[in-house]
């Protein structure tokens, strides 16, 4: 059974620069997650602080939060791309992520070759990939474009191909970032349908988004991140409303 367990995870993004970053501000009114050294230079941003999370099969988690609240970073930690500085992450089950649409495609090779590369990278055998090729082609609706280099694709076409590949092998855990909402309406509808069929097979879905409709259609739990901390957990509806209310208060 797929399982995601996150305990006390903290992560600081270090800033590296050969030249000193000029200090334009005193640092007194910094956000609490900005880290400076003694001389006031920026040395890092604490993106996640003491995040706890546990997901079981059938859980579809919405990650809600403002820009820079740590949504993508949390997904990247779950995906195993950034190791956490502190804490512990345990992922049971096959896990696929679609965190950045531009990443992980070889622009100079064809769509078909990219299907093979991504399949191999996910640890599948050549025969398994060949078996899925047809349905990937069908879902992506790319037709002859699959024989053209990916660099000739529009953003929407790339999304369709990435999504088709990522979901073709029925991962037990799927991590999705905001960009899904960049697809057109028809694609979004088909993507939601595909995600539903996938999650009904007892998978785990983690979806970060600013779209209430997308989150409501796909998720049954939510967490609200604020400056890298979990501010609240609960029902999608309640958490979303609390988040929107808070945003409105800040504007006022």
């Amino acid at each position, binding site marked *: 059974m797929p399982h995601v367990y996150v305990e006390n995870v903290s992560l600081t*993004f270090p800033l590296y620069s050969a030249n000193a970053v000029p200090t334009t501000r005193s640092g007194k009114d910094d956000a609490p997650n900005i880290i400076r050294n003694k001389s006031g230079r920026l040395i890092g941003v604490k993106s996640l602080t003491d995040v706890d999370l546990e997901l079981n099969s059938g859980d579809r988690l919405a990650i809600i939060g403002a820009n820079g609240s740590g949504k993508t970073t949390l997904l990247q930690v779950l995906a195993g791309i950034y190791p956490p500085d502190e804490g*512990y992450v345990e992922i049971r089950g096959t896990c696929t992520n679609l965190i950045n649409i531009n990443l992980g495609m070889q622009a100079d090779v064809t769509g078909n070759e990219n299907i093979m590369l991504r399949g191999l990278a996910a640890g599948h055998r050549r025969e398994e990939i060949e078996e899925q090729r047809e349905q990937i082609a069908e879902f992506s609706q790319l037709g002859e474009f699959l024989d053209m280099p990916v660099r000739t694709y529009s953003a929407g076409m790339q999304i369709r191909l990435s999504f088709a590949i990522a979901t073709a092998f029925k991962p037990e855990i799927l991590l999705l970032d905001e960009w899904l909402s960049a697809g057109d309406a028809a694609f979004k509808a088909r993507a939601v349908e595909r995600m539903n069929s996938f999650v009904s097979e007892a998978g785990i879905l983690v979806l970060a988004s600013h779209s209430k409709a997308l989150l409501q259609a796909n998720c049954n739990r939510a967490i609200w991140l604020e400056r890298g901390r979990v501010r609240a957990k609960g029902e999608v509806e309640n958490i979303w409303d609390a988040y929107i209310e808070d945003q409105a208060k800040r504007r006022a």
Partner: protein
Amino acid sequence: MSEIVRIYGNISKFDMRSVLTDFANGLQYRSLWMAFAANEIQARYRRSILGLAWIVVSYLMLVGAIVLFFGSFSQMSQVDFVLYVALGFAGFQYIVGNISDGCDVFRASTAWIKSTPLPYSVYVYIRIVRSVFPFLLHMATALIVMAFMGWRPDWGALNVIPALAIFLIVSPPIQLMFGLIATRWEDFSHLVSAVTRLLFFLTPVMWVYEEQGGLRYYVATANPITHFLEVFRAPLLGQPFPFHSWAIVVGFSVLVWIAAIIVGALMRRRLPFWL
């Protein structure tokens, strides 16, 4: 199907085992790095008419030019000198290619490192396959040309096999180490490219170091690349087995591995943050 469990976290600041596991896990993705390397090689020549033949053509041009201009400086016979330069240049290109490739192995793979939790060694292996391919082509070209010029190998030529093996063994740690350092400090890759340009003159590719005296002889014997070329070149030239060079090559390879494991243990964990 056994359940896949991945654990992230609890990583110590100095983790030598993670470096070795990374190298070992990367080996399991053989079909991925083969496919990757094949795609990259094809993509590079896809729009050219000569295609892969460019690898052979440019190599023949350079070796031909060196033989023409520098042949008279050596006391070797014409045939031996052609083979000396041809093999030396192929080996030099492979080893120095690993060093300069290593400097951008991770930068060039940023997109994949930031989207897939693959072992980092996968990117190293892609680069190695990509440079082994022209190396073998160069070697085959040299031997075919030489066979036409009347060169005949003896049984001792088989000693080239362990030499090729040590070339492969020393490549992964070189690339990992140079890759990590150059990703963290960009100045390092500028330094390396300046030094590798010098190496072409400091390594006996165009000149025969045994014929030299003084500074040139001293520089050549102190340069480990000389000995890598020696163990590779000597068997095919029908020269006696180079025990001295082999000792240096093996010792140096062990040192490179130890250095790479230490550098990896200290730096590997931070790699995704530098990209």
